[in-house]
C-alpha cells in the first residue's frame, strides 16, 4: 500500500512537471539559445547525398579548422541534426502533449457546458454596468444578443449571453498542429529522398524510389517560355505527361520533379574515308558537348587527325531549343580553317577526307524529391493557424443580466 502510494505520488509529480508551463518556458529558452549562435555558422545545405555531405564537411574543416568538430558537437554547425536540439525538441513535444492532455478536458467542459446562467442576486447588486429605463422586450443594441433564461416573476427577469466560448479550444488545436508537425518531421526523416536525374531525349532515366518508373524529356512548344519542357513518366504500364519549368515542378511517380538546369547537348560522329569510326574527344571526357547555363560555346577534337572544332549555338538554342541553327568551325592541322558556317542542328559535312555527322538535343537535370511529410506539414499548419487565430482573436465573452420592473438592467460581464 505504501509503495503504491509512493508510485502514485511520484507519477503525479512527473505528470505535473511534464505538463507544466514552466518546463515549456525553459525548453523553449534552451532551443532559442542553441539556435541563435547557429545562425552565424555555416549549415550544410539540405538534400545532400552522403558523398556531397562528406565533401561539404571537408570543405568546412579546410576553412574553419578543427574547431568544426567542437562546434558540430555543440550543435552550432549542422544544427538541424544536432542531438541536443533534437533532445530539446522531443522534450518540448512531450511537454506539449502533456499540456494538451492536461488542459483539454477543462477547456472542453468550459466550452460545452457553460456554467450557471443565473448569478446570485448579490452579484447583480454590485454590477459594473447598469442601464435605466429599459424595456424588457427591447434591450439596448449592444445587449440584443442576450437571451432570457429564467423568469421567476414578471417583475424580475434574468438574461444570459455568451460569445466565443469555443475560442480557448484554439490552444488545443494549435498544440495539435504542433503534434502534426512532429508527424511531418518523423515522416521526413523516414522517407525523404532526393535524387539527381540527368535526361536527354531518347534516353531514359530510372528513379530509384519506385521500381519501374522511368522518365523521358522533350522540348516544349516554340512559343513556350524559356526552360519549359515536357516530362513523360511511365510506371506500371501507364504514361503521364507533365510540363516542367524553373520553379514549376512536375509530379510523377509519387515524386516532385524540379528543373535544376537545362541546355543543349551536341554530339558528332566522324568516319574516315574507309568507313572507320574515328575517336572524338569532348571536354571532361563526356560523350557530348553540353551547353549548360552560361556556357555559350564548346570545343571538340579528333586527336588522330589533328582536327579541332568549335560549336556555338544560337541564343535561342541555348534556351533549350534543339531546332535552332548552330555556328560550326572546323580547323585542320596547323589551325587551318576548314569550315566556318551556320549549320542545321542535325546534319552532315565532309571536310579533309573525313565525314562528319551530328545531332543536337536538349538535356535537363532534374531533382526528384519525395517528401512524405508535406501533407502532415500542411495539416499541422492549418490546425496551428486556425487554432492560433481562435485562441488569440476570439475573446470568450459571457454576460449575465437582471431586469427589474422599474426598468433597471444590471449587467455583469466576465470581460472588460
Amino acid at each position, binding site marked *: 500500500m505504501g509503495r503504491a502510494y509512493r508510485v502514485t505520488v511520484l507519477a503525479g509529480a512527473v505528470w505535473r512537471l511534464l505538463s507544466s*508551463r*514552466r518546463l*515549456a*518556458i525553459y525548453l*523553449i*529558452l534552451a*532551443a*532559442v539559445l542553441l*539556435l*541563435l549562435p*547557429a*545562425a*552565424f*555558422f*555555416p*549549415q*550544410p*545545405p*539540405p*538534400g545532400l547525398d552522403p558523398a556531397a555531405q562528406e565533401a*561539404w564537411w571537408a*570543405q*568546412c574543416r579546410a*576553412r*574553419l579548422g578543427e574547431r568544426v568538430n567542437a562546434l558540430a558537437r555543440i550543435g552550432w554547425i549542422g*544544427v*538541424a541534426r544536432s542531438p541536443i536540439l533534437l533532445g530539446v525538441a522531443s522534450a518540448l513535444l512531450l511537454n506539449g502533449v502533456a499540456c494538451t492532455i492536461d488542459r483539454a478536458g477543462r477547456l472542453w467542459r468550459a466550452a460545452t457546458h457553460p456554467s450557471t446562467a443565473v448569478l446570485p442576486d448579490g452579484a447583480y447588486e454590485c454590477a459594473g454596468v447598469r442601464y435605466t429605463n429599459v424595456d424588457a422586450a427591447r434591450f439596448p443594441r449592444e445587449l440584443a444578443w442576450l437571451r432570457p433564461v429564467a423568469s421567476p416573476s414578471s417583475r424580475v427577469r434574468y438574461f444570459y449571453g455568451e460569445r466565443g466560448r469555443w475560442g480557448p479550444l484554439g490552444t488545443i488545436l494549435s498544440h495539435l498542429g504542433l503534434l502534426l508537425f512532429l508527424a511531418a518531421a518523423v515522416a*521526413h526523416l523516414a522517407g525523404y529522398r*532526393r535524387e539527381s536525374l540527368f535526361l536527354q531525349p531518347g534516353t531514359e532515366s530510372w528513379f530509384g524510389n519506385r521500381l519501374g518508373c522511368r522518365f523521358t524529356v522533350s522540348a516544349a512548344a516554340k512559343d513556350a517560355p524559356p526552360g519549359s519542357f515536357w516530362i513523360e513518366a511511365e510506371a506500371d504500364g501507364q504514361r503521364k505527361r507533365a510540363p516542367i519549368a*524553373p*520553379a514549376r*515542378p512536375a509530379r510523377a511517380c509519387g515524386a*516532385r520533379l*524540379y528543373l535544376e538546369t537545362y541546355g543543349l547537348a551536341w554530339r558528332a560522329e566522324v568516319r574516315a574515308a574507309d568507313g572507320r569510326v574515328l575517336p572524338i574527344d569532348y571536354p571532361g571526357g563526356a560523350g557530348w558537348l553540353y551547353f549548360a547555363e552560361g556556357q555559350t560555346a564548346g570545343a571538340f577534337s579528333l586527336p588522330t587527325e589533328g582536327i579541332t572544332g568549335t560549336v556555338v549555338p544560337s541564343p535561342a538554342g541555348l534556351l533549350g531549343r534543339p531546332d535552332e541553327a548552330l555556328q560550326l568551325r572546323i580547323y585542320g592541322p596547323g589551325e587551318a580553317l576548314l569550315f566556318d558556317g551556320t549549320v542545321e542542328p542535325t546534319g552532315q559535312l565532309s571536310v579533309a577526307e573525313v565525314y562528319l555527322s551530328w545531332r543536337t538535343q536538349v538535356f535537363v537535370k532534374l*531533382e526528384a*524529391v519525395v*517528401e512524405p*511529410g*508535406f501533407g502532415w*506539414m*500542411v495539416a499541422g*499548419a492549418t490546425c*496551428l*493557424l486556425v487554432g*492560433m*487565430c481562435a485562441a*488569440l*482573436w476570439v475573446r470568450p465573452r459571457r454576460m449575465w443580466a437582471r431586469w427589474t420592473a422599474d426598468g433597471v438592467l444590471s449587467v455583469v460581464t466576465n470581460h472588460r
Partner: protein
Amino acid sequence: MDWLTEDTTLAAGAALALALGTVSAALQLLKSGATEERSGGTERARWFLGSGGYLLLLALAARGLAVGGWPFARRYDVLLLTVAALALFYALGIRGPGSTWAGVCAGLIATPTLVLTLLLTSSGVREPKPVPPLLGGIWFPIHVLATGIGYGGLALAGGTGLLQLVAGHEGPAENAFPDWEALQRQGLAWGYPWLTLGMLAGAIWSWESWGWLWSWNSKEILTLVTWGLFTLAFHTRRLSGWRGRPHAAVLTAGLVTLFLTLLVSRQVGQRALSGIEYVF
C-alpha cells in the same frame, strides 16, 4: 504630378509624418502623463502615424507599378512594408488606455528605421526591381506580406517590452504607466499569427521552388529564433515569476532578433564560397 509617383518622395513624406506622430505622442505624455484616453495629442499622433503608414503603402504601390508586379525583390521593400505595418497597426488597432505610450513606442521604432533605411540605402539599391522568375507564384508575395504585417505587430509588442524595461514601474509617476501587459498582448495577438503564416508560406514557397521546406540558412534560423522568443512571451506573460520585467526582457530580445532577421539576408556578413556560407 510626376513627383507623386516617386516612391522615395513618398517614403520621405512618410518619415516626416512618422516623426511628427512621435513628437505629438511624446508631448502628450509629457503634458498629461498619458492619463487621458482620447486626448488631442494622442489623436494627432494616431493621425500622423497612420498617414505615414498609408504613404509607405503608396510608395510600395508606386514601386509595384514601376516593375509591373509585386515590389518585393529587395530588402528595402520589406523594410518599408514592416514600418508601414507597424504604423498602421498602431493607428488602426491600438485603442484604449496606454495608446499614447504605444504611439511613442511605434514612432520611436518606425521613424529611425525608416530614416536609416532611406539614408543608408544607395539609390541603386533603392531602384525598383522585378521579382525574379524563381520567386514567382503566389506563395512568395504571401510570405513577404504576412511576415511584414507580423513584424509590424511584434515590433510594437517588443518595443513596449523595451519601454517597460527602460521606464520600469518605479518612480513617482507610477500610476501614469499603462497596462503594459494589455498593450503587449495586442501586439502579440496581431503579429504572431501573421508571422506564423509568413513562415509557413515561406516553407511552401521553398518547397515549390527547390523541393525542401526548410534549409537552415541564417535568415531562417533567425526567423525561427524570433518566433520562438515570441512563443516564449505567450507563456511568460501570466506566469508568476516571469510576469513584468522578465516578460518584458523576452519581448525585447524578440525585438532585437526581429531586426537582426530583417537586416541579415542569406548572404549578409557571410562569405559564400563553394557552397559554404559562414560568418566566423
